[in-house]
Structure formats: C-alpha cells, structure tokens
C-alpha cells in the first residue's frame, strides 16, 4: 500500500526538508546585504536518520524540518551571510531535491509496473 511505504515516506520527508531549506537559503540571499541579519538554516537530517534507525513509520511521519539560526562568522555590519557558501548550498540543495524527486518517480513507476498499468 502506497501510504504505508516507508521508502516513499522517507523520500517525502527529504523533499519536505529540502523545500524548507530552499526557503531559508532564499531568505539568506535576499538579506545578504541587510545589516545585522543572522542567517537561518534548516535541520531535519539527524531527526530523520534517527527515525529510520528506529524502524517505526510513525516516527518518520513525525519528522518536521526545523528552522534554526545558522552558524557563520559575522561581518563588521553584523551580517553572517557568506555569499559563496550560500550559493553553493543553493545548488547542492536543488541537486539533492532533484535526486530524491527522481527516486520518488522510480518508486511510483515500480507500483505502476506492479499493477500492470
């Protein structure tokens, strides 16, 4: 059953997390020149890894991306955004999202093949 598929659940959580992280990176880039702005980051991977290790589908369901204040050295104006790092994160995040979207598509294809569509 699709709704009970732990693999799809994990893929879905990865997509959720990457989407939330994209929001954070977009905000950091928009505020790259705002004095005193502190960069934000999204945490969910450790939580998801723990949930997978537990083998409990409900724990995977409970994983929520968490927006936290990111680390980084402050410039003289108090801003902690580093342009290069942020652009790197942006591209990596999109790549991870694309990879997991492809994985989801493969999974869906498997179900379609199984039901002979």
């Amino acid at each position, binding site marked *: 059953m699709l709704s009970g598929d732990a693999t799809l659940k994990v893929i879905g959580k990865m997509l959720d997390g990457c989407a939330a992280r994209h929001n*954070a990176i977009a*905000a950091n880039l928009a505020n790259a020149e705002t004095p005193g702005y502190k960069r934000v980051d999204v945490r969910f991977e450790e939580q998801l890894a723990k949930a997978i290790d537990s083998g409990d589908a409900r724990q995977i369901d409970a994983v929520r991306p968490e927006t936290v204040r990111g680390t980084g050295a402050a410039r003289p104006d108090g801003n902690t955004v580093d342009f290069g790092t942020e652009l790197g994160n*942006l591209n990596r995040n999109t790549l991870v999202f694309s990879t997991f979207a492809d994985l989801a*598509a493969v999974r869906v294809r498997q179900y379609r093949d199984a039901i002979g569509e």
Partner: protein
Amino acid sequence: MSFDSVFSSLSVSGSGLGAEQARMKAIAENIANANTTRTPEGGPYRRQRVIFASVLSSAMRSGLQRSPAPAGVRVAGVVRSTEPPISIFDPDHPDADKTGHVAVPNISVPNEMIDMIAAARSYEANLAAIRNFKTMVSKAMSILR
C-alpha cells in the same frame, strides 16, 4: 507544508530583486549627479544611500513557522549623505563663491561602480534562487508523470 509556505521563497527572492533594484537606482542617480552643483534643496547634490531591513512575510508572521523564520528584505529608507561637499577652486564656475571655490558633490565614482557590481551580484543570486526553485517545482511535478 502548506501551499503558502511552499511558494513563500518566491516572494522572499522577489523582495531581494526589488531591494537590489532600488539600490541600483540610487547608485545610478549618484553617478549621474556626480557633478551636480544645483539641487531643488539648494547646494550641491548629496550622495544617496539605500538602507535594507529584513521583514517577515505574512504567512510567516501568522505563526505557520516557528522563529527564527526565513525573512524577506525591504528598503527601510534612502538616506542622504551628511558628508560635507568637496570644495574645488574654479573661479570661472557660475556657482563659485567670492574666493573662487565651488562646492561639488562628495561622490567617488569608482566607489559607486564597485557598489554597483555588488548590487548586480546580489540581484543575480536572487535570480539563481528563483531558477533553482523552478527546477525543484518542475522536478516535483514530474514525480507522478
């Protein structure tokens, strides 16, 4: 994840584009008026500077996301430089005072150019975020295709 928060990154990136555009406009005015000695307020032109401030989108303000939340950017204000104008000796100038000195704007064109490059780079970074978002959306759409 709600529909609103999924697409909020677009408005955040959009706010970045708008802010950088405002900064670019101020720089353009500074360069255009680098030699302006007459203004409606009187005296030489004074350098403009755009001040940025971060702002939460309505979806984030309504508490859909816990703090610290990703924020957009807005132009908090445009301030005029309070630095005194540069006085140059040019007795033929119609705006010269009795001693032959003219007050010209305290604007360094090379500095403005560097600022312009930084603004253009920031603008492109926000565009890149929008491009990446489009990639992610089309990828997500293709899952069930």
